[in-house]
């Protein structure tokens, strides 16, 4: 039994160390290639989006649920887009606060605004489906009800959507607004070094795991072909990304399409959000596993494998820590004995890699936000505590996803929007 278990145990220990190490280099290298290929070109100027031929009409769809505190600002920024042919469709999804009244008041202020009230709360996916129904545009830009869209973002997104007939979606570049607390500061770095870096690397590969649900543009024809957003998935953005790509639509990333967002600044709020993301990712893994067994869908295999491996890694980490702790109290069989969690010389390499990843990502992102480098000091928390949060949410999310009743409608929960 020992001869069988010992090599597996050794493999898992090494896997737990090597996987995050080498994946970090995959993201770093991919992001650098993307930056050199697309971002540091002379004609790539944040202030001047390329002209969009014909300026076809676009609809900005804003699903809202209890956005009474933020919707004024959101619509102010949405209405100030420098693109010259758009309307805004705000969908009030059965809000219980004063969102409905505010939206009806604001339509008098913004001539391009139309408001659709859903009589009962239906969930974000349904709100966007209804918003699409009321739009006559082939091009839809969907933003969250508390997101501030940069005035050039629509032009940048439209540049991609009109740039090729098989571009199904474009994901924008969310930036964290609230940085008063430690959690806010960590997320600034996280959005650069993890989310921004991974999106860039995935674009070099050719397939992405997900659009950013907070800011994304879509081609209506593409959505129609894949059945629009699913109403039973807790992360409709991951789900629609997979639906589109499995039907051979392209999803692009546009770092110039900035969108300023509010992220949780409490542990409870952050945990709930990350739990939803993790559950959504697992739901997608389960939903599409049977869909992948086709040579025509081979380009999604690596995306699927990477996410599956990350879930497996989280579970392995929990196993290793549990075995290490048990080893402090009882004599463990050699195959299950974890002597130390400190990796020695390997730790030096892991440490260097982590700091390098954050440094590269913040350097790339400094183009879109001056002074972002000062958040480097706070990034030490990411491997120390954030990884543990991600491992914890995965452990809770995987069983939730597995045991969730199929077809359950996914509805909103009021998010934590920071301390101010």
């Amino acid at each position, binding site marked *: 039994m020992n001869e069988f278990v010992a090599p597996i145990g050794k493999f898992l220990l090494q896997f737990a160390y090597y996987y995050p190490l*080498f994946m970090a280099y995959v993201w770093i290298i991919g992001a650098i290639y993307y930056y050199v*290929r697309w971002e540091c070109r002379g004609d790539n100027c944040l202030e001047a989006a390329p002209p969009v031929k014909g300026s076809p009409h676009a609809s900005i769809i804003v699903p809202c649920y209890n956005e009474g505190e933020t919707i004024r600002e959101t619509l102010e920024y949405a209405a100030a887009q420098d693109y010259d042919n758009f309307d805004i469709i705000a969908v009030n999804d059965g809000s219980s606060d004063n969102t409905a009244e505010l*939206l009806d008041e604001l339509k008098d202020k913004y001539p391009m605004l139309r408001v659709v009230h859903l009589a009962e709360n239906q969930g974000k996916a349904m709100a966007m*489906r209804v918003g699409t129904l009321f739009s006559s545009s*082939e091009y839809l830009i969907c933003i969250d009800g508390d997101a501030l869209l940069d005035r050039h973002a629509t032009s940048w997104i439209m540049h991609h959507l009109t740039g090729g007939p098989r571009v199904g979606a474009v994901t924008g570049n969310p930036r964290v607004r609230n940085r008063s*607390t430690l959690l806010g500061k960590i997320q600034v770095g996280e959005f650069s070094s993890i989310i921004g870096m991974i999106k860039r690397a995935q674009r070099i590969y050719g397939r992405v795991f997900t659009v950013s649900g907070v800011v994304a543009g879509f081609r209506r*024809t593409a959505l129609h072909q894949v059945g629009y957003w699913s109403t039973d998935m807790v992360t409709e953005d991951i789900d629609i990304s997979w639906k589109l790509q499995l039907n051979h639509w392209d999803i692009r990333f546009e770092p110039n399409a900035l969108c300023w967002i509010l992220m949780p600044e409490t542990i409870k709020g952050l945990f709930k959000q990350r739990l939803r993301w993790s559950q959504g990712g697992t739901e997608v893994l389960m939903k599409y596993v049977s869909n992948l067994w086709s040579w025509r869908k081979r380009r999604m295999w690596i995306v699927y494998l990477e996410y599956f491996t990350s879930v497996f890694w989280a579970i392995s980490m929990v196993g290793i820590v549990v075995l290490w702790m048990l080893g402090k109290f009882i004599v463990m069989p050699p195959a299950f004995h974890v002597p130390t969690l400190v990796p*020695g010389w390997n730790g030096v390499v892991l440490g260097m890699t982590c700091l390098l990843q954050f440094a590269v990502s913040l350097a790339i992102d400094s183009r879109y936000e001056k002074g972002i480098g000062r958040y480097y000091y706070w990034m030490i*928390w990411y491997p120390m505590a954030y990884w543990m949060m991600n491992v914890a949410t995965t452990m809770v999310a995987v069983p939730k996803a597995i045991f969730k009743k199929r077809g359950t409608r996914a509805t909103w929960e009021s998010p934590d929007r920071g301390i101010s």
Partner: protein
Amino acid sequence: MSELIIETPHLQNLRQRYGFAALTLIFWAVWFYMWLPLISLIAWVFGVKMFYLHMIELGGYVGFLELLGWYTLIVFLIAIVFGGWMMVNLFRFRGRERRKPIREVNDEQVADYFGVDSDYLSRFTGQRSVTVHQTPDGSIRAIEARV
């Protein structure tokens, strides 16, 4: 327009502000602890003898250099594979769209998909504010204009 960046640390209490800053410092200290082998090597060079575990038991700087060598090779391979993949795709697909374009859907098709009569819907698409009533499964039951 509001400030895009919200930085109001004064909304936290003193314990939170200084507590987190102190903890961050401690984490940096733990981080440097992981660099102890390298720090030990440098300290040894300057004659300070506190390196036994890392220099002797774990193979010392020779082991570290060998490790670095392997890592550098693997990272180099990742860069070659990724870069090669990028160049192959650029060569195969740049400026060429091999997938068939799909005819754009029109408003009638979208309405039909959602189970709404397009003539009925068109009475409301010009309205500035409407209310939509749905069945439990999400189908649209009725639409009414809001005054």
